[in-house]
């Protein structure tokens, strides 16, 4: 992307007492991208988000949002951000609608019409005039999304937004976030534990562990598909005679029999070639399945599957 990043974290460090919770974290979020922020429990995702929205002070480093320093020009930086930090706590004694009016007053340019629009968007029309104390967790989450997008922020920051949503709600949110990014060019910075979810909605994912950035991976776009072309993956062939097939493929990369199927490691072109050889040898091929390494596997690989520390 040639445009300036919407958010830029530069060597952000947070120390509480003698503990370093975030350690020289640097990353950039581009306009119109859905950026995932992945890490095990206690790795510092929420802490990073708190610093991005000015709830916590940085020990050193700086964060710029739309070119404005969160340290030095907080109101300017904040005006471009909509966020949910951990749970979307609302005023329980107010109705959903009154809560939205409350937050609308704090951002310029949100009128009643826009409020009605976002209420419809998150599907709360039926319950918006109920007190929030009567809402379920999923309904509060929806209200949280409504207050976060109401003022059409350039950057939407969501801390585990699918928490408490039902499968339909998760799907809707995912589609909505992608649409926001594509149609309105809003950047979305989202942290989540649901790794498979991130795979479905993010363009890039950053992985952090104990406050350090470990890796940033592209999931969509050129870099990601090129990776798919050349990377050797585990492939399963479902054939009629596994032993005969094994004979045909003797000597090819890691070929073996697993669960009554023929397993081997091959890159994209090699899969087609292997199939041709099997068919030519008169072996019937019923199915070919590549075990794509899910983000979850990659994540566990990178973080070593460690537990909370």
């Amino acid at each position: 992307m040639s445009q300036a990043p919407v958010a830029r974290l530069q060597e952000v460090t947070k120390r509480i007492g003698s503990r370093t919770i975030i350690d020289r974290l640097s990353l950039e979020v581009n306009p119109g991208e859905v950026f995932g922020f992945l890490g095990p429990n206690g790795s510092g995702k929420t802490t990073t988000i708190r610093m991005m929205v000015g709830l916590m002070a940085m020990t050193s480093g700086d964060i710029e949002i739309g070119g404005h320093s969160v340290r030095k020009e907080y109101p300017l930086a904040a005006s471009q951000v909509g966020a949910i930090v951990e749970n979307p706590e609302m005023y329980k004694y107010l109705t959903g609608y009154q809560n939205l009016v409350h937050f609308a007053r704090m951002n310029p340019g949100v009128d009643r019409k826009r409020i009605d629009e976002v209420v419809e968007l998150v599907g709360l029309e039926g319950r918006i005039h109920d007190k929030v104390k009567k809402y379920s967790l999923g309904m509060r989450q929806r209200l949280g999304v409504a207050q976060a997008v109401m003022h059409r922020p350039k950057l939407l920051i969501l801390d585990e937004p699918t928490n408490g949503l039902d499968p339909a709600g998760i799907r809707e949110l995912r589609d909505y976030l992608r649409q926001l990014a594509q149609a309105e060019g809003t950047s979305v910075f989202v942290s989540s534990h649901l790794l498979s979810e991130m795979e479905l909605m993010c363009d890039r994912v950053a992985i952090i562990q104990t406050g350090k950035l470990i890796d940033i991976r592209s999931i969509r776009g050129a870099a990601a598909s090129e990776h798919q072309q050349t990377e050797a993956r585990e492939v399963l062939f479902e054939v009629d005679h596994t032993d005969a097939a094994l004979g045909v493929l003797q000597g090819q990369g890691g070929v073996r029999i697993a669960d009554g199927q023929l397993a081997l490691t091959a890159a994209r072109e090699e899969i087609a070639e292997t199939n041709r050889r099997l068919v030519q040898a008169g072996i019937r091929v019923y199915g070919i399945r590549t075990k794509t390494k899910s983000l979850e596997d990659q994540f566990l690989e990178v973080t070593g599957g460690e537990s909370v520390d």
Partner: protein
Amino acid sequence: MTNFWNLVQNENMKIYLRLRTWIMLGIIVLIPILLTVGLTLVTDDSDGNMWELMGTETIIVFSLITIFTVVISAESVAGEFSAGTIKLLLIRPWSRSSILASKYVALLLFSILQSIVCFAVTWAINALVLGYTSDPGGIIPESSPMEGHSIWAYMGVHYLYEWLQLVMVVSFAFMLSSAFRSSGLAIGLSIFLLFAGGTITGLLTLTDKAWVKYILFANLDLTSYLDGRSPLPNMDMTLGFSLIMLAVYFIIFNAVSWTVFRKRDVAA
């Protein structure tokens, strides 16, 4: 940037859309009515002076107003932290100082509203039951600097002094609320300040150390000056001196609230 009044409106909404606020206002209306009607029934006498009873009721109701405002102010900051709503409140394009200021303004407005209700009700019920008179009765002592002024002026100044005391107690509560984020502690200590103040002033009169007149308690109750007395009879104190002392404490309390609220990490 949208205007500051929007923030005050938000704080007002959070005060007036709660049932407890209306119960408080209800109590302020009810107490003078019950007292006046009750007293006339018990003593079977309706020739009392309306201003005298109004003055007594005002003193009683004003301690309630102070307590109510303390409760709301303690909740105003600490409550946002305990409910977690502080996060959504502070991520807006506003400085933390503006947000704290809007809360403070809304609290003062609430105390002014209660004072007006108190004045209106105590005046109306006593004028109604005891009959209106412009005669102040024995309420303005001869030693008072307001001697010779109309009873309206005297009552006005009386309310002003009571309100200044309230502002001090509420600022104290507000400070504890933002420093400790505990509404219980803020409410407890502020009410202690309000009620123990008189007793402690009493104790202070027993010593003749000059420094006691700089203590907050000694300067809280300005109505002594209205009656032509000094809060500490054995000290050389003037209204001007007390006002300066209150201003100093006021600045300290609010400076602490502001500093703590602006600096602190929100990890709620």
